[in-house]
């Protein structure tokens, strides 16, 4: 277990009496494609928030690459190689699609105020390369034709693609995808799924929260099931499909 890339221990989070997350032990290994599923209110997004630094736990700890990141700021965790997307797609509305990607792909030292005033040749070159990189990704995800449109003009599905593009432009080690298929038409969902599979094959560790069980069963190597904040099942798709607890959690206990 100490070889896990991500590890949580005794992780607890409550909101005014309601237990959102209560997990004794859970770890994720390098290169795995894991889906996190569970009925509504199971604490999946809260779990994401806790491991990506967007919320602090009440107790317990989170380790990333053997480092205790329990109280780290989200941007620090992102710099360690863990990038996430959001349940309600977050794109920069009043910037163009290209600008969205240029910002995301630009490294922190490139953004510095000093450098931006000087505008050296090397920065110009860097920006050129960045633009090419952005264009390649846009092409791969089929949004190149929207490059100069404001992000707010994009359809729901295109926004999801943009958010994905933004997440991968920096070649992250770990991707946390929060409902990447939500509200997306079946054809696009297929494309997104194959992209996720492809990323996983390239070695990226992926954690995915999803409600689309069919898709989850199709591509996951491992499935983790949460209900009412706790871990109730953990295994490969076949194991989960036939797991009693999982079925109960989804359908309610009065189903015998």
């Amino acid at each position: 277990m100490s070889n896990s890339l991500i590890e949580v221990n005794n992780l607890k989070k409550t909101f005014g009496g309601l237990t959102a997350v209560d997990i004794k032990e859970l770890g994720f290994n390098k290169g795995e494609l894991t889906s996190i599923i569970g009925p509504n209110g199971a604490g999946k997004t809260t779990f994401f928030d806790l491991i990506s630094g967007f919320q602090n736990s009440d107790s317990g700890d989170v380790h990333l690459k053997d480092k205790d990141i329990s109280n780290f700021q989200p941007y620090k965790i992102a710099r360690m190689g863990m990038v996430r997307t959001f349940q309600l797609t977050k794109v920069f509305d009043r910037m163009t699609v290209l600008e969205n990607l240029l910002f995301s792909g630009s490294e922190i030292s490139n953004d510095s105020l000093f450098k931006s005033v000087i505008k050296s040749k090397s920065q110009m070159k860097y920006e050129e390369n960045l633009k090419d990189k952005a264009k390649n990704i846009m092409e791969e995800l089929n949004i190149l034709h929207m490059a100069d449109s404001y992000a707010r003009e994009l359809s729901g599905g295109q926004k999801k693609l943009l958010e994905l593009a933004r997440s991968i432009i920096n070649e992250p080690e770990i991707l946390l995808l929060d409902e990447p298929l939500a509200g997306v038409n079946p054809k696009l969902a297929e494309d997104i799924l194959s992209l996720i599979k492809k990323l996983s094959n390239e070695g990226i560790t992926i954690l995915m929260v999803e409600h689309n069980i069919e898709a989850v069963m199709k591509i996951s190597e491992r499935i983790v099931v949460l209900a009412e904040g706790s871990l109730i099942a953990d295994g490969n798709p076949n194991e989960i499909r036939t797991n009693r607890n999982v079925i109960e959690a989804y359908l309610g206990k009065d189903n015998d």
Partner: protein
Amino acid sequence: MKISNKVVFAVFLTGFSIYLVFALNPEGASRILLNLLTFAGIYGLSAIGLNVHFGWTGLLNFGHASFMGVGAYVTLLLMPHAAGREGEITSTGLPFIVALIIGILSAALFGLLLGLPAIRLRGDYLAIVTIAAAEIFRLLVRDLESITGGVYGIINYTENLQQYRPNFINNFSESFGFSPSQAWVCLVAWVSIFFTVLFLKRLNNSPWGRALRAVREDEDAVRAMGKNAVWLKLQSFMLGAGIAGLSGVLLAFNYGSLETTVFVPLLTFYVWAIMILGGVGTITGPIFGSIIFWVIISETDRLAFILFENANGQQLAGVRFLLVGLLIMALMIFRPSGLLGKKEELLLDVK
């Protein structure tokens, strides 16, 4: 180069306003115009700084006057001057440029000090905190009489700038009948605006400017990309504060004497009105906004004088503020994007 309708309209309106000054003042128009342009330049510069705070970064700064004040007081106190009730003279000091740079940096530092704790606060709370901080600044300045001259203020400092006044200004002023010292301040103000605008345009089309825009859009997404949203906001806060500091110094030189009634909330509200009028988020908007604003203010001053014959000076000044209040309300309700602002980039409809 394509020039949009908005710019054409703004230029026209500005030109018309200036024409109005001549039309309504058959005598002494050039003197009035110079005075107006000087204030317009100084306030315009301040509004450009405020725009960095609000237009670029979405920070509700209602204590802007205090940044101007910090710049002014620090700069003045570092140069030869006289202060306090006795007019105590300090005859040595730093050269103007050095004092000015330190003054600007001090304003930026004040921005950092205020921003460090406050920048995480939500909009309306940041507004309250900035007003409170500005009020504390004003009270401190008033009470530390031994340093700042308190209510008696600082005098005898204008020579520090005026000594650099070139001869052509003197000749120019003589032929037009206005004050050469004010003409010099006016020129310095507008040259400052020119360079500040160039600087900001450069920054706007840069990775830093892009990062700041992203912060304005969605801080969480910025953090998810590994970037420190708070530090970016702080940098912008410092930048706007520095610009405000410069404008504060210029204001002090325009007045010739400085005391505690200058850097007050009403000053902040003026600058806000100018910024909204010119167009939130635009770099050059405040320039047009400022000129038009000052024409309105100065001409209605005279209008009020004619209308309300029995009013005393204080009440007449009140008419001017009446208009400012009305202008702010009308703009926010009917035309929040102002003269040059882009509707798509409007920050003000954030709930």
